[in-house]
């Protein structure tokens, strides 16, 4: 067995929110996620799941510890390099879809590519391709307000995929959806994992968690690792 560099490697990571009072939302976190892995993150409300995701997604810096992304020690990166790395390699999907209500579906999907220096033509081409991938190829000129919740979340996934990320971070993407609609979203995620995308998925739903290769439980800021299934 050859040892390849893991995509995510957390060593003794902690995250404090300066108070008062100071909240230690994450403590001594160890986690390794390899390329193509599908990991669910579960835990009670307030346990620190989103905090973990923000650190992994380079939206927040850990207070202490070491975080390597694809072998790069992120602690040594300037703010600018971190932003560039995040924009290029990491996609986000949230419970709230955060779509711009007055912009068309293609414009929403292509929005992040502006910051990669892509022209309108290129943005539209990529956006339409990603919309096709989530089964919304025909709705590209619609406004988000005309879409159902499931469709809006699919637009958000297409937007996350627009930069061709190597890591997809999902914070309760099905939290606002009924189970049938949620299933459609999870199917899309399964397909992405099939295509070797690495996925971290926060969820409250054990059934959703069960679809992942393995689960990480967060309890009071500590990570408890389940056995892998696959």
């Amino acid at each position, binding site marked *: 067995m050859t040892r390849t560099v893991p995509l995510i490697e957390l060593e003794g990571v902690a995250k404090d929110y300066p108070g008062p009072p100071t909240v230690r939302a994450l403590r001594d976190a160890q986690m390794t996620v390899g390329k193509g892995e599908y990991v669910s993150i579960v835990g009670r409300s307030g346990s620190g799941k989103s905090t973990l995701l923000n650190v992994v997604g380079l939206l927040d810096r850990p207070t202490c510890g070491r975080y390597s992304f694809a072998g790069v020690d992120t602690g040594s990166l300037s703010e600018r390099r971190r932003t560039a790395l995040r924009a*290029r390699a990491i996609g986000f999907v949230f419970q709230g879809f955060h779509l711009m209500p007055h912009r068309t579906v293609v414009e929403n999907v292509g929005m992040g590519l502006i910051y*990669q220096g892509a022209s309108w033509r290129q943005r539209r081409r990529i956006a339409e391709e990603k919309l096709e991938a989530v089964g919304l190829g025909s709705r590209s000129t619609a406004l988000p307000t005309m879409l159902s919740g499931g469709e809006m979340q699919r637009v958000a996934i297409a937007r996350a995929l627009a930069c061709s990320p190597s890591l997809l971070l999902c914070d309760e993407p099905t939290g606002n959806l009924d189970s049938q609609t949620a299933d459609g979203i999870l199917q899309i995620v399964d397909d992405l994992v099939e295509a070797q995308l690495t996925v971290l998925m926060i969820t409250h739903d054990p059934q959703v968690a069960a679809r992942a290769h393995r689960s990480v439980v967060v309890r009071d800021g500590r990570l408890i690792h389940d056995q892998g299934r696959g």
Partner: protein
Amino acid sequence: MRLRYVCQDALVSSVSRPSKLFLTAFGAMLGVASLVAISGLTTTAGTQIIARFDSASSTYVSIENAGEPVNHGDPRLRWASGDGVARIEGVVRVALSARLAGITSVVAVPLDDPTVPEATPPAVLAATADLGEVLGLRLSDGRMFDRGHEERGDNVVVVGAQAAGQLGVDDLALQRVVFINDVAYDVVGIFDEAIDNSFLGAVIMPARTAQTHLGATSPDVLHVIVRPGSARLVAEQGPIALAPSGPTAFAASYTPDPTDLREQVGEDTRAMFVVVGFVSMLAGTVGIMNTMLLNVMERTGEIGLRRALGAKRAEIVVQFLTESAVVGVVSGAAGSAIGMVVIVALAESRSWAPVAEWWLMPVGFALGVASGLVAGAFPAWRAARIEPASSLRAA
């Protein structure tokens, strides 16, 4: 490149909500409109005042006897005095008039009832026929007496509208005779406008007629219409032309050149315009800033997401500055256009000629854009401070 796409995207973002864009621009648009309108109306009204002034006063010179004669044979105004003055360079027309003394009664119907108290009679003037044009008399009925009447010494008069009302001769079709000191005169015309409204209360007859019946031997005012800019010269030369050896026997008066007044009017109105414009622009700018701040708060999620997807703080600033610049462009363009329409409409309603400086439109436009940028600075700074991690947690 990237920055260009950020600006383009911000532009599309602004115009994707046209009604909101217009509402945001509304306050500053009114500010620009009022600025442009006030400035233009100031100029228009100023020009109008000057025009009236030019037509009324600066082309009019009057020459009177300087006092009572000391010696017999001292120079005095005579009915023939006009000829010499008329030859001075710059003189357009001259006329002479005398206010008649010894008028005891002026009535339309002769009354012999001694119990009726007699009203103060209107002033009666003797004048040369050119007085009508010199004083700018506008005949509302009939006509001015002419040279023929004057040479023959006909018993004719023209009556000012005010005097006509007092005498009851408003309508020449019904009543066209007045009695002055019990002598009948034909009323040939009624005038309702003159260079000086005090003339509207007077009755005017030809000089020769007055000499025949009322003993008017000499005029007391020589009225001169001059070309614009010649008033001072004529006021100096007039007395000399009348009496080369003793010009001090005459006093000429004219209103000084209106240039000083023009500047005065300009200064006053400009100060007012600066204050009003400043206040309305300030109100408009604060309005844009408020709406833009609300806009930023509303779009916290979008801003966080843009940051998460790689937008730098500077690019967020550029985006929101561009959006408020678009608001500024709309308020500047619409505001200065509305201001121009107001100038033309108001001037039209008063039948003034609309006058506006050429720079009003571009300056109004630039002010709108500037107010958009100024108003957008603080909201853009606030937007750039939004942290992606905290803004995205809310569902």
